[in-house]
């Protein structure tokens, strides 16, 4: 009997410690899971926002975007984007709209899936645009397509933002020789409106 009792007690103790262990695991999962959520939310706030129509009282501004028309020239299209706070924020939104595409049936000069990771504008007027890898991986550029991609970006930024005089293109945070083997990315670009339809 005593042995049986002992055995019963130890079974109870075992059960209790098992329960405690399950609780401990639950607590750990709860906290780390919560932490994970926080990290995820933090990351999301750093990803360029999906373009949204200016809601309610939010200030909007009009930008001119450059798409590729049937004559293979850059065609101007105006669009409203949320305004501010900084020129770099508006610039990132304008470029996201460029990727999103034309509302008038023209072609986007940038490959689908391309994201604007960051836009940085210095006081001396150089805008540095950092694109995601899709800008090089999702298209096989010919010279004409590559020139259109580069100058649609450069012309969009310089023509809409007086603070921007020249533009540098990066991919995934790094300098690149070219997007697809043609146009030299090592120097800052001045705008070239010769590709724009009259």
């Amino acid at each position, binding site marked *: 009997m005593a042995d049986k009792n002992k055995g019963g007690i130890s079974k109870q103790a075992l059960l209790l410690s098992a329960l405690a262990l399950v609780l401990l695991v639950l607590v750990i999962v709860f906290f780390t899971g919560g932490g994970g959520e926080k990290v995820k939310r933090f990351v999301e706030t750093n990803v360029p926002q999906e373009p949204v129509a200016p809601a309610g009282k939010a200030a909007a501004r009009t930008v001119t975007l450059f798409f590729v028309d049937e004559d293979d020239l850059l065609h101007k299209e105006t669009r409203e984007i949320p305004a501010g706070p900084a020129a770099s924020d508006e610039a990132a939104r304008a470029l996201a709209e460029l990727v999103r595409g034309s509302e008038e049936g023209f072609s986007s000069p940038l490959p689908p899936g391309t994201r604007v990771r960051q836009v940085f504008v210095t006081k001396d007027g150089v805008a540095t645009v950092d694109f995601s890898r899709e800008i090089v991986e999702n*298209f*096989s550029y*010919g*010279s004409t*397509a590559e020139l259109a991609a580069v100058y649609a970006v450069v012309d969009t930024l310089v023509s809409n933002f007086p603070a921007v005089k*020249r533009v540098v293109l990066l991919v995934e945070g790094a300098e690149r020789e070219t997007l697809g083997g*043609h*146009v030299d990315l090592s120097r*800052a670009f001045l705008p070239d409106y010769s590709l724009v339809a009259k």
Partner: protein
Amino acid sequence: MHSLAAAALALAVLAPAATAQERPLRTVVIDPGHGGLETGAKGRFGNLEKDITLAISLKLKALIEKDMGFEVVLTRDRDVDVSIENRAATANNHKAGLFISIHANGSVQRKAAGSETFFLSLNATDEDTRRLAYLENNSNELQSRIDPSSSDDLMMILWDMAQNAYIKQSSRLADLVQGELDAMLGTRNRGVKQAPFRVLTGVACPAILVETAFISNPDEEQKLASDDFQNKVAEAIYRGLGVFLKGKG
């Protein structure tokens, strides 16, 4: 900025004291665009820019060697990756008198069509313009006086811009080649244009980039893949070179 340093130093070592303008033309460098993993533009029927450019380049090489008697060096003679700086270095190391880069074009618009010839444009800032003025005034010195061991940043930058000393000749070569393409190909004449193409910036001789036709246009893709059209492109460029060389006297 220093990516062409190797090419520059190689040229500095090999270049004779004579200026580029006086140097007799012996070598033509032909650059078949792209290669290896870098396919260039793709056609709807699966043709790749890198294969078309190599085929045309080989035909052009044969024409020049047969009738002009110049040495022709290709930046690649098979399907391999070649870095952009090595393409310029091939021209400079062989003391090339002419550099012709052959490409097939691609656009996001399927209808885009035609042939065009490019020479270099520089996105000239004020600083670049000053350097350019220096280069134009000192291009003779550049080839004879650079100390190969020099790590002078200005010299490196100047070599990185070597093509700028040859812009006028490159412009003339582009005009002549484009004229022949227009006469022979029956494609839309998109004219002569300037663009900041990486492969041209470090080349220390007259240099052009020929966009033969659009591989992204299904009609032109089929032309580009045909032996007949490739022969015509090679012949047109060959004729353009001939007129250019005659004019040089």
